[in-house]
């Protein structure tokens, strides 16, 4: 039975009222008295030595307050990288400096050379045009393979090469060689997981402020994790201790990973505000977003799958080149390694797995986590090679997967993670129930009568979410802990405010978190308010990414609420003259077990703040508790996806006719929000599969620097989805039994689409088509069909 409130209820998203009525407050809505504006003069070439920057004419332009160049930041730190990967020889990755404004060289189109602060944004921009920059162009490194060649010009002169690290992970050589030499069949696939531009609806904005009386700095920014920005910027870049630095991320219009990272513009605005003693604001244009927001994916991979004669997987071996771009963005090194290599077992019992990743510097925008981050790359290659193997061996794509499913848990993979629970048979069964596979042949024949080629693609996925056990990620190179926090403040009249380090930028936290806390106490959801996004009034948290907010942040809330309930019971026991161990809390009522004597939640909360009749010698007044929660494992959402397509053989155009997702997210707090998360994820996955492609030319110019050329998915590119999350194996190690659902759609859907298109062409007689690289644009599909 669906509930109408609390955990499990499809409560409407309370935050949507303000978003839909234009009452949200975004960073760009913040305008401070005396504010100045900054415009960044950005490099229009990909790689060059900066010979000179002459700002004299520009400085004299109307409205100019001050012009900054790289020299102004010589005494300041660079943007830090939050993860250090150790390479196959035990050496740390190569880690180049990343100055706030370019020093000595520019390394990608968009690299900031100078920053003009002026009375208006237009004046700043006009003055920037008067800055005379002399650049000595250097050969740009765009292609990863070329950048790795001996003697290739270096993106960073201070490094030994363009190789950031060469990382090997999983089974040892002996085990992997044995798996392949004993194989009856080996399937090999070369593929590209193309670069994507994240395209949050709200471009990035930063407003720096400085109170010179108090010596306090404040940064308002479009961030998914204000505390992380406070720590990174304060400690590593500007040298401001946390108690003198406040970071506020108000309403944020989407992030998808791109707003996790600490960006130069944030440090600039904070720094300049202090220098100039007035607020400094920057609002990115969409063009700037294309050349400065950390981009996603960009892996070139060769994957090999070894099978026995029955189709049992014996080994998986992969070689990937992962593009880092010109600088190491905050979490960039972790994405192709611990967020990718650890997932190469997928849902299968493959005993030997070895993953090799070479991370490469190029003269392109930095690449970092983007919805799914590493896990889509892992899923895509694995599920594509399995499909190819099934075809080569004449096996059914579902049967070959079933044959290899992990069925007993916990399961320790050869790639370092231990799946606590799951049921891949159940999600596959559910999927097949949803898609009428038996009817496919009739649908295909009907499509053929209209001249269309119909295909069906099916795949599984698994991801590691609920990021992450701090001790474990510390061993793996993280320079941060990955716990989450919550403070639950109960007010005298019974309402609650929950202050969390998680950040909501579209996920609906304000609704679902309130459901959790209200449910635990048995009160109306509307008595709970969720506060997030301001380091001044929330406990230190690590923010929102990696589908962690409910699993980790929600768990912190549960722990804090448990403390609240324990204390409230003591107060209730006092009021009821009973032992606190005899007090039961149900539906907001404290009852002495086995009696009808009770006090209401509100009586207890009032007593906590008006402690006239109160156990004052035993407990303090007030009702406010904080908890930090550090998970002891990742969570492992998993599922099975299917896509049905029709291909127009005359034009190569792919039309998605149906899409089904059977996900296991463990327990569900708000099924409507989960549906929405899956829908959005699938839209992004289909976007990657069919449309999106962030491309550079050989000189490093961004070819897809606007929506004229970068194809975002639109409503009419997408089908109506069937989504189901009734298969639930609750997470075994967090108190809510939840796994996270934010990235699944984007992880599971690209292989489904590509598998379906290849299936359509194969059924259409084009047996030479075994793979097409994403995006499957009409011209690429048509070209593949021509052979």
């Amino acid at each position: 039975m669906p509930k109408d409130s609390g955990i499990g209820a499809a409560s409407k998203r309370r935050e949507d009222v303000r978003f839909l009525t234009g009452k949200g407050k975004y960073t760009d809505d913040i305008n401070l008295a005396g504010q100045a504006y900054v415009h960044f003069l950005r490099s229009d070439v990909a790689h060059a030595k900066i010979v000179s920057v002459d700002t004299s004419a520009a400085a004299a332009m109307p409205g100019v307050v001050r012009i900054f160049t790289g020299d102004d930041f010589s005494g300041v730190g660079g943007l830090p990288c939050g993860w250090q990967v150790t390479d196959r020889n035990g050496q740390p990755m190569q880690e180049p400096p990343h100055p706030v404004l370019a020093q000595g060289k520019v390394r990608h189109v968009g690299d900031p050379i100078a920053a003009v602060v002026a009375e208006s944004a237009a004046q700043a921009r006009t003055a920037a045009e008067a800055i005379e920059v002399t650049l000595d162009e250097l050969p740009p490194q765009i292609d990863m393979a070329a950048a790795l060649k001996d003697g290739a010009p270096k993106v960073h002169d201070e490094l030994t090469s363009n190789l950031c690290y060469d990382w090997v992970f999983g089974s040892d050589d002996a085990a992997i060689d044995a798996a392949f030499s004993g194989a009856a069949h080996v399937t090999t696939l070369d593929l590209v997981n193309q670069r994507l531009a994240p395209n949050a609806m709200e471009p990035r904005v930063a407003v720096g402020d400085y109170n010179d009386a108090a010596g306090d700095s404040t940064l308002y920014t479009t961030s998914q994790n204000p505390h992380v920005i406070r720590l990174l910027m304060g400690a590593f870049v500007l040298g401001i201790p946390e108690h003198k630095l406040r970071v506020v991320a108000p309403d944020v219009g989407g992030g998808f990973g791109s707003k996790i990272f600490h960006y130069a513009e944030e440090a600039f605005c904070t720094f300049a505000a202090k220098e100039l003693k007035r607020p400094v604001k920057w609002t990115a244009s969409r063009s700037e977003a294309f050349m400065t927001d950390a981009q996603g994916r960009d892996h070139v991979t060769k994957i090999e799958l070894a099978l026995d004669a029955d189709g049992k997987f014996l080994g998986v071996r992969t070689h990937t080149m992962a593009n880092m771009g010109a600088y190491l963005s905050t979490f960039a090194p972790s994405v192709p390694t611990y967020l990718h290599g650890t997932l190469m077992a997928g849902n299968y019992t493959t005993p030997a797995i070895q993953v090799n990743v070479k991370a490469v510097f190029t003269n392109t925008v930095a690449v970092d986590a983007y919805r799914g981050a590493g896990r889509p790359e892992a899923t895509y290659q694995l599920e594509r090679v399995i499909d190819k193997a099934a075809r080569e061996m004449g096996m059914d794509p579902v049967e070959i997967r079933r044959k290899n499913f992990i069925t007993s848990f916990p399961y320790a993979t050869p790639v370092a993670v231990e799946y606590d629970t799951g049921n891949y048979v159940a999600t596959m069964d559910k999927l097949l129930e949803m898609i009428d596979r038996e009817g496919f042949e009739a649908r295909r024949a009907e499509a053929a009568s209209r001249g269309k080629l119909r295909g069906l693609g099916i795949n599984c996925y698994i991801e590691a979410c609920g990021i992450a056990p701090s001790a474990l990620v510390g061993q793996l190179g993280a320079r941060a802990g990955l716990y989450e926090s919550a403070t639950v403040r109960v007010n005298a009249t019974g309402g609650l405010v929950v202050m969390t380090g998680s950040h909501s930028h579209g996920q609906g936290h304000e609704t679902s978190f309130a459901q959790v806390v209200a449910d635990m106490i048995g009160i109306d959801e509307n008595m709970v308010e969720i506060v997030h996004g301001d380091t001044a009034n929330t406990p230190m948290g690590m923010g929102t990414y990696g589908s962690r907010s409910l699993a980790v942040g929600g768990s912190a809330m549960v722990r804090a609420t448990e403390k609240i309930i324990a204390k409230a019971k003591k107060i209730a026991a006092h009021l009821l003259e009973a032992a606190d161990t005899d007090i039961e809390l149900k539906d907001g009522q404290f009852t002495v077990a086995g009696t009808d004597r009770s006090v209401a939640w509100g009586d207890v909360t009032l007593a906590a703040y008006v402690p006239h009749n109160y156990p004052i010698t035993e407990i303090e007044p007030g009702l406010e508790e904080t908890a930090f929660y550090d998970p002891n494992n990742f969570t492992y959402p998993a599922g099975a996806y299917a896509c049905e397509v029709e291909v127009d053989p005359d034009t190569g155009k792919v039309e998605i006719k149906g899409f089904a997702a059977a996900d296991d997210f463990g327990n569900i707090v708000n099924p409507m929000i989960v549906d929405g998360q899956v829908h959005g994820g699938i839209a992004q996955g289909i976007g990657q599969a069919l449309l999106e492609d962030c491309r550079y030319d050989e000189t490093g110019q961004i070819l897809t620097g606007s929506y004229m050329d970068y194809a975002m998915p639109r409503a009419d590119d997408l089908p109506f989805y069937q989504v189901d999350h009734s298969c639930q194996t609750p997470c075994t190690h967090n108190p809510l039994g939840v796994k996270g659902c934010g990235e699944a759609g984007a992880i599971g859907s690209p292989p489904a689409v590509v598998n379906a298109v290849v299936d359509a062409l194969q059924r259409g007689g084009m047996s030479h088509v075994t793979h097409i690289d994403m995006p499957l644009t009409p011209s690429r599909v048509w070209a593949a069909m021509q052979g």
Partner: protein
Amino acid sequence: MYSFEFARPGSIDEAVKALKAEEAQALGGGQTLIPTLKQRLAAPSVLVSLSGIAEMQGVCVSDDNALCVGGATPHAVVAKEAAKSFPALAGMASRIGDPAVRNRGTVGGSLANNDPSACYPAAALGTGATIKTNAREIAADDYFQGMFATALDEGEIITEVRFPIPEKANYQKFVQPASRFALVGVFVAKYASGVRVAVTGASEDGVFRWTEAEEALSKDFSAKAVEGLKVSADGMISDLHGPAAYRAHLVGVLTGRAVNAAA
């Protein structure tokens, strides 16, 4: 955007006068020009808006059976008003951009801009339209002079476009997935005097007539008649959305489809 003066004349004469100012530029619906200004790629001293000129608005059918569209008429108006009299043209207009673009963008602006991927140039060339300006009448065959190049003189205003109404016509647009302009668009129109086929989106020289197809279709107006015909990929646009060979292929496919769909 740099600052500029703004004029909104009420007549063609006033507009012509206003455009005599140095660095003056006409403003139609602003769907191309305003983004260009925002990117600071142009710096006109004065923008002369044509939207207040009543004589440049509206759609009617002339005595010689041409659809006459005022030069400042938005696409949405054409989509609505020409739906009965010239459904192929109305259909073309109804698939330009999105509602905001169609409510602002104008036929004059589209033809003056002559974007190699725009739809209106195919309709104008495909119907042998007459482009009327404040100074003269220009036949479509003489008007288009390559990508973004036209026969217009500086300060010359398109006041009206006359599209001869065909017996049958259709426009097939295969969209570029990002911009949704035409990756390739083919306008086919059948007249008593013969068939015209105009192709947009494909050629590095902008919109062009596919004369071989015209000849074949003039003899036999059926998709079969063009089945074996191929345009050469030489001189076709190659970009990240499709190589020249693909565009050349699409020209053939879309021409056949336009013939089948012609109404």
